[in-house]
């Protein structure tokens, strides 16, 4: 059974994620109004927001430790926050700053934080194989860490996911696959692209347990994920979980959602997992004052992260050439070899002379 403290922690993660993204919207739109230009303003590029997905990230990550691995897709903020990714450095990354998690090289779809074993891929389902690999490493080294791969329901038709299910199953690897079903893959409703009712059904074909959670109830996610993570930690193999979540916004910022009915958008907004969890907390005797306190703390943390990020320096142009390799061979790749020639390193690379 979930404790009230755990419920409060989840609530805090969820309101942090929601408020964080509301604030990101403000910042993202700077320089993009009245005419929306994706490359303008302090946060350029695509921005995929996860409002309505928070219960999934929070409910799953409650069971994870820093040494457990998480891979997230193109919509990663709520998962990163729940996994404990450094919010300041994550924000600096989104602003493209030098002190960002990835020194400004990754951006919002490609957040990497080795301190808590968090990584992303913007390519659909391609976070799944590396999660399997992290689980493989844990098994080979006899640790009890686990890996969790998050993906959208649109990703359940992708080879990278299906092949990963099989590889994880056949080797009994400690992986949990978490599908966030928000009913849409950009403009494509799920029944246009797949014949199954839900993604959890994919598990049967690979002989692993599949669990479908029909509402974005953080407690239900917490309970299902708890079982799956324990199963993985105990060496009993992978589990596939699908959580019904809701896409409260467009696919990405700037998406006018012409393909989606008003009624569908309203429906997504009515079912608010955060409000539902607040009610649960009240029924457990948590007062409105205490909930306000949690919210205020979350808001302060978000404000701090955003103002810190905005004060950070931009990366200098020379940094573009760094980090291609961990052990850069020579300067040859970027200057046609002249630096290597000049430094005399060329001989060491096996030249004839």
């Amino acid at each position, binding site marked *: 059974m979930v404790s009230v403290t755990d419920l409060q922690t989840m609530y805090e993660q969820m309101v942090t994620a929601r408020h964080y993204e509301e604030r990101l919207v403000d910042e993202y739109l700077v320089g993009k109004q009245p*005419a*929306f*230009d*994706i*490359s303008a303003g302090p946060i*350029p*590029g*695509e921005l995929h927001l996860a409002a309505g997905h928070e219960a999934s990230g929070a409910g799953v990550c409650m069971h994870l430790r820093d040494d457990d691995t998480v891979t997230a897709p193109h919509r990663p903020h709520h998962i990163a926050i729940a996994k404990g990714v450094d919010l300041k450095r994550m924000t600096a*990354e989104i602003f*493209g*700053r030098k002190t*960002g998690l*990835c020194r*400004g*090289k*990754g*951006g919002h*779809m*490609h957040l990497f934080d080795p301190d808590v074993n968090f990584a992303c*891929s*913007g*390519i*659909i*389902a*391609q976070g799944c194989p590396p999660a399997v690999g992290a689980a493989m490493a844990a098994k080979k080294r006899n640790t009890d860490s686990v890996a969790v791969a998050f993906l959208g329901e*649109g*990703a359940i*038709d*992708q*080879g*990278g996911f299906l092949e990963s299910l099989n590889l994880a199953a056949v080797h009994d690897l400690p992986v949990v696959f978490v599908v966030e079903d928000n009913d849409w*893959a*950009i*403009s*494509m409703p799920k029944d*246009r*692209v*797949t014949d199954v009712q839900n993604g959890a059904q994919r598990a049967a074909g690979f002989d692993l347990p599949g669990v479908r959670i029909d509402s974005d109830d953080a407690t239900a996610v917490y309970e299902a994920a708890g079982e799956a993570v324990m199963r993985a930690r105990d060496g009993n193999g992978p589990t596939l979980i699908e959580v019904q979540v809701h896409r409260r916004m467009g696919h990405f910022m*700037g998406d006018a959602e*012409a*393909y989606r009915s008003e009624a569908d958008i309203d429906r997504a907004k009515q079912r608010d997992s955060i409000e539902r969890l607040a009610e649960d907390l009240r029924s457990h005797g948590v007062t409105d004052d205490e909930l306000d306190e949690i919210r205020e703390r979350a808001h302060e943390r978000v404000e701090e992260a955003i103002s810190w990020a905005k004060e950070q320096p*931009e*990366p*200098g*142009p020379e*940094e*573009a*050439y760094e980090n*291609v390799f961990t052990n850069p061979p020579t300067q040859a*790749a*970027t200057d046609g070899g002249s630096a290597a020639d000049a430094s005399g390193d060329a001989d060491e690379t096996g030249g004839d002379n």
Partner: protein
Amino acid sequence: MATESRDYTEATETDRELTMSRAMVEAIAWEMRENEEVFYMGEDVADYGGIFSSTTGLLDEFGRDRVMDVPISETAYLGAAVGAAQAGMRPIAELMFVDFFGVAMDQIYNNMAKNTYMSGGSFSVPMVLTTAVGGTYNDAGQHSQTLYGTFAHLPGMKVVVPSTAYDAKGLMHSAIRDDDPVVYMFHKRLMGLGWMPSPSGPKTGVPKEDYTIPFGEADVKRPGDDVTVVTLGLHVHRAMEAAEQLDDDGIDAEVIDLRTLVPLDTETVLDSVRKTGKLLVVDEDYQSFGVTGEIVARAAEGALDDLSAVKRLAIPDVPIPYARSLEDEVNPGTDDIAAAVRELHE
């Protein structure tokens, strides 16, 4: 093959200016009306009309049977396009961003590109693979590449890179009618999207009627005597802008838009280099083992005696970084082009 004297005046005599996306869609719609065997599939190509407006309006006119939203299963639907093409249809399949080729490359380079040859010519694969390319809007390493050289390197695919609305339409007609697989790479920044403003160049006059532009004919965008600038895609427009700046300083650059990489119009490049003796190649793909190296090699093979100086500008063999300051550093800009031409001219 050289097209220096080619005359567009007749074909472009029209007040009707279109964006590149409108021109591209117009050709597709025309071919779909003419030929029942042509159909389009991809992610978000139906109701959405393509993330980069590559299919706007097609669903309304042709319905879901011929304008198909497909699962996020690139291996399956790109491979299905190969199969449908081998069965005699003329599918157009869209890979939303070229960067996603990785999840489906086997279908592209082992089936689509090779089945004609491996079958000894008994099969042909008359399909078009449309795909969005390029950066400049800070979308980072998995959404900003052009990969021109990757596709042009692997034999068996024709590779088309339009830089104007006029070319986009004519090349699309040619692509759909071609009996071979054609990779049609459209640059996001050139499509004329409201949310990603284009430079002024790609929006051009476009005739209403159908017309084809043969593959393997580069376009001399601007004749000049001092330095040859060979480029493609977005960088055609950057090179033209640079040429105008240089003109003020009395440097006369010739700008060549390759338009197709396979086949490649070597003659037009050689003719120009023989005249100017100086060659700059500008590319938005990675520098090593790519388009810039290939053009320089052909110039060296065909006109070595006439060449006095060579330079190339491309992405300096790093993944495309996210931050604006970093992406601007690695993607050749108008000023970089102007500076490189000046250096060559000295």
